[in-house]
């Protein structure tokens, strides 16, 4: 089972966290993505400290599939 709306949010969020340098930029990037109202509300409620922390976490831990040889 997939959930297209949630998948769109997750993909957009990870992309924004990986590209943006500030919480404001993350919110601006996400504002361009068509999302369901409930998901947009969740983003709007996000604390800038949490977004900034998420930017750092994604920058530190995220690796693309082609960066890691298969097990």
């Amino acid at each position, binding site marked *: *089972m*997939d*959930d*297209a*709306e*949630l*998948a769109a*949010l*997750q*993909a957009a*969020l*990870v992309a924004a966290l990986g590209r943006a340098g500030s919480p404001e930029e993350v919110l601006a990037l996400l504002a361009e993505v068509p999302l369901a109202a*409930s*998901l947009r509300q*969740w*983003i709007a*409620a*996000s*604390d*800038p*400290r*949490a*977004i*900034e*922390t*998420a930017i750092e*976490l*994604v920058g*530190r*831990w*995220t*690796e*693309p*599939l082609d*960066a*890691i040889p*298969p*097990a």
Partner: protein
Amino acid sequence: MRRAPPKIGLSVLPEDDLRLAQLPLFAGGRVEAIEWTLDAEFAGAPPGWIEGLLDHYASAGALYAHGVQFSPLSARFEPRQAEWLRLAERALGKRRYQHVSEHFGFTTVPGLARGTPLPVPFVAGAVAIGRERLQSLQDVAGNAPVGLENLALAMSREDVLVHGEFLEQLLDPINGFLLLDLHNLYCQAQNFAVAPDQLALAMPLERVREVHLSGGSWSTVQTPDGPRPFRRDTHDGAIPEEVFALLAFVIPRCPRLEVVFVERLGNTLTTPHDVARYRADYERARSIVVTSERSDG
């Protein structure tokens, strides 16, 4: 009727600083259980000394499995996750584990090999996906119970306030357990001004089989209201006083609690003081656990 206290143990990782810090604790018979991160053996066999520990604790019924990169709340199921399940099944088949846990949240989206657990909004679609993923983990875990760890990072106070109910709805269909990470809970409480004990009471405590203890760090974040602190679950510091207090608070309230683990990231014990404090923290946690009192009812 009084129940026996839970076991107390250590999360084991291959880094040498952690191994050396833990060695006297193992040698002194202070470690009753260990937790092993399954992902660490997906790319190859762990060092021999770790295999010896895993075999020893497995034979004693005191080996616990933890996963990091399954990503149970990824909205899109990826081939990477199917492969993770295959490798987890293989690893779980090598030894007897008491249970298997993963993290709440999503770590990857299509195109990513690994990431960090990120929060997910509490919506019906997320609950349905999480339940399906947990069932697939249960399918490879066989008879071993499957559980989820509460997350440190929350996007808002609202996320914090519904986290316990979200976990309950995810775990209920498989009668799964909660891995209650008290430093994660402390992070949420500190960052969103919620009393830690009230937050603990909002968790499904009757589902707790395992507790994690660790330290972390503070960062300062510039906000429109000026610089504000944010507590991080970095696993690189001493266990805060409030986390020890939470441990004493939750043990009597968790009737199914089986084991408490102290976690620390490798390559973070850089001074003799760090090592001494790590061991002292473990002994203090051990003292709280072994003197704890619980009743059956």
